[in-house]
């Protein structure tokens, strides 16, 4: 019964949406069937857009992972680096991405690289901060245990800190993947030319031509993308830490 609850909610929302759409003109609120229809008609463009936005999100995640995980490891090794740079990483987090995107267009020109950068920027901080917290999460006795047997810094990192950090880092990725999709789409709003086509571009262009059903279809596609990325992180969590984390 409790497993069915989320589906029940989805069904109710769909019903409510459908009922409400009957009272409104399509250009304001298309119904579920109209959105499906628009999605089917534009399936090639939507599919290609989904793929390109996915590439920008994943590329951004990869860049942010490199800098975030590498940065957290350096912070651990050299604490003065952390004191020097962490405040700015935190500050960067507070600058709205929508304000940065036009600057990126100036620097990078129109195209997918803007989306790649905005995706990387928005998901960088959760990765850095979760890795930073995770790497210093071993207890004092765990650290002393390794110290007692003469473990080197690298041994302590590999045998203790990295595995210990996994639950925290993966929790960070749970929010980072959703943010990367948001970042990519914001980048596409501002910087995409429509060639190659992307979800952000589809949302903007269809809403400008009052094709609200296609806008909805593109929004749904981006939700599907975020959902797939999120589910992937959950699957990795189950595989990597499920056997030992959260039991005691």
């Amino acid at each position, binding site marked *: 019964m409790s497993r069915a609850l989320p589906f029940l909610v989805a069904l109710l929302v769909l019903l409510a949406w459908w009922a409400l759409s009957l009272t409104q003109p399509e250009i304001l609120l298309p119904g579920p069937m109209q959105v499906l229809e628009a999605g089917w008609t534009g399936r090639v463009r939507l599919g290609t857009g989904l793929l390109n936005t996915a590439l920008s999100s994943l590329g951004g995640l990869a860049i942010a992972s490199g800098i975030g995980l590498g940065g957290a490891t350096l912070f651990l090794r050299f604490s003065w680096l952390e004191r020097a740079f962490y405040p700015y990483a935190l500050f960067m987090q507070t600058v709205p991405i929508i304000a940065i995107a036009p600057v990126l267009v100036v620097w990078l020109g129109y195209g997918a690289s803007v989306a790649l950068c905005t995706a990387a920027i928005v998901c960088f901080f959760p990765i850095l901060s979760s890795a930073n917290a995770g790497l210093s999460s071993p207890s004092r006795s765990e650290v002393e*245990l390794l110290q007692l047997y003469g473990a080197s810094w690298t041994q302590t990192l590999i*045998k203790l800190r990295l595995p210990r950090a996994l639950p925290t880092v993966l929790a960070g990725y749970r929010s980072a993947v959703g943010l990367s999709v948001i970042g990519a789409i914001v980048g596409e709003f501002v910087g995409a030319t429509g060639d190659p086509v992307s979800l952000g571009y589809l949302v903007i262009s269809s809403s400008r031509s009052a094709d609200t059903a296609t806008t909805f279809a593109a929004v749904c596609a981006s939700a599907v993308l975020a959902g797939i990325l999120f589910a992937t992180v959950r699957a990795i969590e189950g595989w990597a830490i499920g056997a030992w984390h959260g039991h005691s």
Partner: protein
Amino acid sequence: MYAVRFQDLSFTWPNGEALCSGLDMVVQPGEILALVGPSGCGKSTLLRLAAGLLAPSSGSVERPKGEQAFVFQKPTLLPWRTLQENVALPLELVGRSDPAAVIEVLELVGLAEHATKLPVTLSGGMQMRASLARALVTQPELVLLDEAFSALDGLTRRRLHLAFLEIWRAKGFSVLMVTHDLDEALWLADRVVVLEGPPVRLKQVVQVELDRPRAREQLHTPAFGAQLQGLERLL
């Protein structure tokens, strides 16, 4: 000869508070020495000084060359490693691999059939025994125990005491242990050092008058009762 010797040992925390100053203490080879004292007096810190995890501010901590092992109050097993991988960790860190030695110590603590299980699937007592096995795998000459038995229920604790005494008799290592349980101190140790502080000072050293090997019946003799009362009065 000594297993550990504190000579004129002083240790000051970074905030300027002194943990101890001019402390002298010796653990004899092969003996079990128990430290007892009020909470916060500095027992764990003395153990960490003995292990070399902390460096003295002045004076010296001397240990003959040889393996040492530390058993923490919590089992401190790495949860992503199976029991045998946990026990093998000390060997692994110095680039050794000795599966026979790992199985031998797991047998010693009665966990051989659980070797491939993850710690989360074991009870607290079993985890503590695994932690003991890990300490023994390097054939240490000195074993440091920081309230190693205190988190266990009474029955499990008694069993582990007996198992520990047997292993100690067979292997002949020296033991420096901290406990807040006077019964346990008398029952296991050759000498009990009563501490006060902070800053930590030796209040009294009590020679335990119980024969070895120890038997459960000794716990109920008048001699044991008298020693226990003596210790209680000191604290």
